[in-house]
């Protein structure tokens, strides 16, 4: 084999392996000039959105490692985080202190939610993704019951700014005045005109380090073994169900922190909607970054967040220029989020079915011999 074909081979493998991100880069390369945004604006947006969303997307990694697929149940963590924020706002504690207190208050709740999700998913092996999705909807119902009816009645809420005028239930939108960008601006730094959320990035870097370190621990190895083959892992003495529950609990707790970071950047909590799209957008971003249902890495997260949000910013304006309507662009980006998830799961599942068939055929072959 000459060096040239080897080179070609690597290139083609690179393209096939990263088809999704490359497709997106091409798509965005067309859309950016159409939208007419300046590069300065886009860079600023991307820096903001990297800080806002990376943490949430990172929280998806551990369940993938444990072979549980895309954890749509991260909304459970997001809702825990929101309850933490509501309580802290009620107590009137603001600033970074409030933010960390919200995390501390929400942690036990997120652990509980993660444990529930883990137990449920252990009973639905082989269909974790759809179960985690519907479980998210279900817990959303419970969340609404708590926030809309129990808060202010059974859980005392004194702050009239967040309680509905009827005396109980939380308002639709809560202004997080004291907390807004408290973490982003904790360590102020500007490069040119672009403010850099240094503290948030430090947080994200710490999480990356944690995940990197965690993968090397005994538990991390166990998790990957469980992800590869549950039966083999069980035989080699790994407590499969326990390991899976731990993966989901960690994911839920991280998503809880991720949602709090997300909300401090946005500055307003839409009590009943903020968590609606959390899972869809995080999953779509991760997949656009080149991850699959069984394999995801830290670079996938950052590439995905950048590409997904570039599309998100650019699509409405490009749609307006191209079709004369901003709504088209908005529908387009929603379509892409759902479409990319559909395509990724189809590809993964198709491959699995084919592998199963191949395994069966090879088994038959040895028998005949």
């Amino acid at each position, binding site marked *: 084999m000459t060096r040239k074909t080897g080179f070609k081979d690597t290139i083609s493998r690179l393209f096939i392996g990263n088809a999704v991100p490359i497709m997106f880069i091409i798509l965005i390369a067309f859309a950016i000039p159409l939208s007419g945004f300046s590069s300065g604006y886009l860079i600023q947006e991307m820096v903001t959105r990297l800080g806002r969303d990376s943490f949430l997307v990172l929280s998806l990694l551990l369940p993938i490692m444990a072979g549980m697929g895309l954890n749509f149940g991260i909304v459970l963590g997001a809702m825990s985080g929101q309850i933490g924020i509501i309580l802290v706002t009620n107590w009137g504690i603001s600033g970074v202190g409030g933010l960390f207190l919200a995390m501390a208050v929400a942690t036990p709740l997120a652990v509980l939610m993660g444990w529930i999700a883990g137990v*449920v998913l252990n*009973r*639905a*092996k*082989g*269909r974790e*993704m*759809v*179960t985690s*999705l*519907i*479980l998210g*909807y*279900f817990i*959303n*119902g*419970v969340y*609404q*019951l708590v926030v*809309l*009816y129990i808060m202010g009645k059974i859980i005392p809420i004194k702050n009239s700014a967040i309680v509905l005028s*009827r005396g109980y239930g939380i308002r639709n939108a809560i202004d997080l005045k004291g907390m807004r960008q408290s973490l982003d601006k904790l360590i102020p730094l500007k490069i040119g005109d672009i403010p850099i959320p240094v503290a948030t990035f430090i947080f994200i870097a710490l999480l990356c380090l944690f995940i990197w370190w965690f993968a090397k621990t005994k538990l991390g190895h166990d998790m990957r073994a469980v992800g590869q083959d549950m039966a083999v892992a069980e035989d080699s003495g790994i407590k499969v169900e326990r390991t899976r529950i731990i993966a989901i609990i960690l994911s839920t707790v991280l998503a809880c922190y991720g949602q709090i970071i997300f909300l401090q950047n946005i500055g307003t909590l839409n009590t009943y909607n903020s968590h609606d799209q959390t899972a869809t957008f995080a999953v779509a971003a991760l997949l656009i970054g080149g991850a699959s249902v069984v394999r995801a890495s830290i670079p996938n997260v950052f590439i995905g967040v950048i590409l997904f949000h570039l599309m998100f910013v650019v699509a409405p304006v490009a749609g307006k220029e191209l*079709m004369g*309507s901003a*709504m*088209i662009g908005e*529908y*387009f980006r*929603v*379509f892409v*989020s*759902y*479409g990319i*998830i*559909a395509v990724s*799961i*189809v590809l*993964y*599942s*198709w491959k*699995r*079915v084919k592998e199963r068939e191949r395994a069966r055929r090879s088994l038959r072959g040895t028998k005949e011999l």
Partner: protein
Amino acid sequence: MNSIRRFIEKAGWPRIIIAMLLLSLFIVAPSVGVRVDQSITDTIVRFGMNGILVLGMVPMVQTGCGLNFGLPLGIIAGLLGATISIELGLTGLAGFAGAMVLAAPFALLFGWSYGKLLNRVKGDEMMIATYVGFSSVSFMCMMWMLLPYHSSKMIWGYGGAGLRTTISLEGFWLHILDNFLTVRIGSNFMFPTGMILFFAFMALIMWAFFHTKTGTAMTAVGSNPDYARAAGINVDKMRTISVIMSTVYGAIGILVFQQSFGFIQLYNGPFFMALPAVAAILIGGASVNKANITNVVIGTILFQGILTMTPSVINSAIQSDLSEVVRIIVSDGMIVYALTRVTRKSR
């Protein structure tokens, strides 16, 4: 005592709890000023509206394709039929029949390709169905704006292009089934004979189909695919037929739903329409791999009954509208319960 226990085992706890809840709501209703006859009418009407959509779950469950979370695909076919029928200026019975006839080719095409897709992803049908549903709805959101419709009844008044989010059926085929042979007793009780007859007709077709040779082969595929293949049944073909059937029932189901509801809901309307239908059939006692028409009837009555009664009764009793929360908790709780049960059985 033993027979009670056997009954509970057969009916399953969730179904009994929900039936009890519904019964107690009906008992409490008069004391909080809610008319029982009005509530029964509402329950029957909503049963008729949703029945065929729920019926559309049966074929796919029977062939082992799981719960049809991709129902929005069938709904989209129905919406295309309805809008084209209006575009052609059809009204009354001709409009309603025209909508069905026009929806059919779309439903067949969508169902066929959706079935082919599901054959390649055995084992992950439900997750993929969900996202096929979501992405097709959001794709159609763009199409509703771009497709060349001209009827002034449907497009936005300003701009002159793109369909409205809701289109009234007033003057087209509003209540065409509801008002057929309607029985009225007093001012509060109404029985929508036409709609119930139509449901019975659609259920009969399905029942008859499952007693043909193809129908039995489909059931065989669902209960044991390996055995079915050994018996010379083309498993993939049977699965495709079941998906097409489910999609066609979804298309017809939404048309029946709309003629009673009064509006065509486009854009994000069909997004979450699969969940109530899935929940209804599960409440009726179906599981992820077994369902029949009795499950559909019982489930739809129970689920729609709860949905009818909770807003009126609870609202009058404690002065706050819990209905949305109750709907989410009952329907999604039921689906999660069903998803966790099936693996325990199969393991």
